[in-house]
């Protein structure tokens, strides 16, 4: 059978075997937890606690401020140590609530209260999602209740559960699909209730046979939900590509999936929706992978949001003897953020830490030559851009050509071009800068 896929893309080494087979444990943090108020796209949440307050697990720390914003929920019990500016994973500073962890993890009242099917309305679903502080857990961090609040819910034809997980090293969605297959499908069905004409498609790359099997087993009796295998290729899980592969509909820059009748949710998000609606559990924990060639026991764990990266690396056995962690990435090696410090907390939308003993970028810099116009970048671009020409235009400062003729703003920053470039040109970096420059000039 020929699997569905898109034109372009790359095949980086997966390294998924490192972290997918070990039994999954819930890691309970020992140190302080830090909750940045900007764990989502949109306006940062407004803190509702102050220094010295006693807080419980599941309690609201900061509430959504405005329409596109999300609640921040405490994931441990203890005392608020401070509400102040701290560094976050991206390297910038944000207002954070710091909670001194008492190690008890006492739940706030009402958390874990079971809700039966048929006892809640569509509005209750949205309210529960909003209260739980759920955002896009695949990485984007877009508040989920906003995404699911549609003016025209009849126009949505497909809800795509994204379980493709195409980034190397990361296995949290894979493990989640194997263990919580039923909950994910229930979560998907909750979303489908909001969109009367929609079908649910669970898209999984064919390199996760166990997950496919587990999900198919649950979908067998379902009418509205089915599993769609897609070819394992990076960036299969990118929203634009996934929609194109699964439905044949294409998005362009500035369009939302809803414009072509689709909504894409990560499987982790659907799981969180299930927990919030049926068990009244707000978003406190998530599946998280700590992997990389410098880690002693790479693994996928269930972790508390707000745990420091240093502690999580320690939980995975720490750094191998004789190894230095040259580079620590929040996320995978293709799109992850290189961190300057480990003393930062993980947010809701972070799914992995990848610790590398060698830095291929450092090595690539010594191998850089002139562009030989080989066209490999154009060949792999999943959006069908021509990165070589974009780089030329960007270097000449021809922003108009970059934007108008070469569709430069459509770049999804997947990094495939930079990955394959034999001349080791820093294409992605150039595109990010140029896109930022163009967007800045548009805002003026």
């Amino acid at each position, binding site marked *: 059978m020929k699997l569905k896929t898109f034109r372009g893309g790359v095949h980086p080494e997966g390294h998924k075997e490192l972290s997918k087979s070990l039994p999954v444990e819930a890691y309970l943090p020992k140190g302080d937890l830090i909750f940045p108020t900007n764990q989502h796209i949109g306006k940062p949440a407004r803190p509702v606690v102050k220094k010295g307050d006693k807080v419980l697990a599941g309690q609201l720390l900061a509430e959504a401020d405005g329409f596109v914003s999300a609640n921040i929920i405490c994931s441990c019990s203890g005392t608020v140590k401070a509400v102040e500016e701290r560094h976050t994973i991206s390297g910038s500073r944000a207002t954070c609530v710091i909670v001194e962890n008492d190690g008890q993890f006492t739940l706030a009242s009402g958390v874990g209260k079971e809700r039966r099917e048929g006892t809640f309305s569509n509005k209750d679903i949205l309210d529960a999602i909003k209260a739980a502080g759920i955002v896009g857990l695949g990485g984007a961090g877009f508040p989920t209740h906003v995404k699911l609040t549609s003016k025209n819910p009849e126009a949505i034809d497909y809800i795509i559960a994204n379980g493709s997980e195409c980034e190397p090293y990361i296995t949290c969605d894979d493990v989640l699909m194997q263990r919580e297959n039923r909950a994910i499908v229930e979560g998907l069905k909750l979303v489908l209730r909001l969109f009367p004409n929609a079908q649910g498609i669970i898209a999984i790359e064919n390199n996760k046979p166990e997950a496919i099997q587990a999900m198919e087993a649950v979908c067998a009796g379902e009418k509205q939900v089915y599993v769609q295998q897609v070819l394992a290729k990076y960036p299969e899980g990118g929203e634009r590509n996934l929609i194109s592969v699964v439905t044949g509909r294409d998005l362009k820059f500035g369009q939302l999936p809803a414009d072509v009748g689709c909504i894409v949710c990560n499987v982790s998000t659907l799981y969180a929706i299930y927990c919030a609606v049926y068990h009244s559990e707000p978003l406190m924990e998530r599946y998280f992978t700590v992997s990389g060639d410098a880690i002693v026991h790479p693994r996928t764990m269930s972790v508390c949001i707000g745990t420091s990266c240093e502690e999580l690396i320690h939980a995975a056995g720490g750094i191998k003897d004789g190894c230095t962690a040259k580079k620590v990435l929040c996320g995978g090696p293709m799109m992850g*953020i*290189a961190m300057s410090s480990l003393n930062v907390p993980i947010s809701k939308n972070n799914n992995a830490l990848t610790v590398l003993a060698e830095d291929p970028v450092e*090595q690539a810099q010594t191998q850089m030559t002139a562009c030989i116009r080989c066209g490999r970048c*154009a060949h792999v671009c999943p959006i069908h851009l021509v990165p070589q020409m974009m780089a030329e235009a960007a270097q000449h400062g021809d922003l108009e050509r970059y934007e108008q003729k070469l569709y430069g703003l459509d770049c999804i*920053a997947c990094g495939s071009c930079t*990955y394959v470039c034999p001349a080791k040109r820093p294409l992605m970096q150039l595109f990010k800068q140029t896109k930022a420059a163009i967007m800045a000039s548009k805002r003026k």
Partner: protein
Amino acid sequence: MTDTLLNISSSPHIRKRLTVGNVMFQVILALIPSAVFGIYRYGLRAFLIIALTVLSTELTEFLFDYISKKPNTLKDGSAAVTGLLLALSLSHSVPLYIPILGGIFAILFVKCFFGGLGKNFMNPALAARCFLLISFGSAMTNFAVDGVSSATPLAALQAGETVSLSDVFLGFSNGVIGSSPLLLVIGGLILLAAGGVTIEIPASCLIAFTAFMALFGGKGLDPHYLMIHICSGGVLMGAFFMATDPVTSPMTSAGQLLYGVIIGVLFGLFRVKGTATDSGSYAIIIANLFVPLIDKMRVRKPLGYKNGEYREHEFPKAAFNLMAITLIAGLTLSSVYLLTKDAIQQQKEAAKAASYQAVCPVAVDFSSNTAMDNAIQALNGGVYNENYGKTYINEAVVGTASDGSVTGYVISVTSADGFDGNITLSVGLAPDGTVNSISFTELNETAGMGMRCGDDEFKNQFNGVKTNAFLLNKAGGSTSDSEIDSVSGASISSGAVVNAVNTALAFFAETVG
């Protein structure tokens, strides 16, 4: 936990291992079978040529970098590839200054002066080869093995000789060092498998060339004829190794298809209508000039920009464009031929009359002679005498003075044994059979070589000689009047001329003398 500073950089944080050096090394690897065969076939001399060319390109690049205080770029391997490609497209018998000059020209003038790797707009190896072809024509096209010169398969094919396809395909015909089609194809497949080149350029180029030859080559779909053409004259080398040079070929698949078709059509056009048999180099460097335009013209639409919001079945626009271009090129060519056919015929008549006058200057009128006409009729358009190769008598006339007395005879003979096609000439004879002079009405030989048969230096050797038959002296320095010194490097053209004149003499002796 970690005191060392962490590295930060923009994503992605991993890179594919492939470097520019690897890409170049793939090309070298794919060329090695051809190079080894060349050395096996042509001996140490071939090795010497290859070594000198590569050395020359490498040294030129090194010195340029050194003098212009640029970082050393030898390790990217592109200079070595240029050297190897150039060496493999040289004859093993070229004088040793040729590979050295070629290497310098390729690297210095074509590559470095335009900004080095990735900035040259023509394939350096081919540009250097064209430079050498123009500057040192005879040396570049002398493919003699052990001093015995013989025609390249294309020349032989044009002369109507039988050419063994298996010899050509295995590489046992005369040609450049890297001219074994079998090994070039193997090398090309290695390169394709390694991902060094994409299939678009070689495939579109070869298909367009084959289609062109089938349409305009005059032999239709004759597989033997088409295969000989594909396997010789640098078509395979061009399609797999020269045209695919990433620097001078388009970026996108559609652009590459168009570019391949341009090359294929130019290959065919130069084959069928051009004079030089080995004009493949020119075809590619001309197509190189189109590359910036092709790249600009075909900026593809990204995902989501097709007509309408939802993607319909993709309209194969590129394929239609390519077909239209091929058709237009074909129609233009054939219409040019049809339009100019009559004009060419008139010109030929006028040229014939002028040449008759030139070789029989005292005559005021030319008339036919029954004996000669009957003899021509009897030949029925066939070969006159096998000893003189494929020669044909076109016409024979008697030149008369104003008083009606015979002043001489003119016999028009065509030899099909020319290097690049037919040679037609008029031989003027005095009534006693002494050659007055000869004059060409059709001479399309290689510029600078066979074409020099038309020079007085060669032509005048026939004047005023009375003999039964002339002899061709390939070495030069003739002592007897009836020996003709060959134009150096063009023994085939010279031989065809001598045979044509001998045919006229024999015909004269048979019918008049």
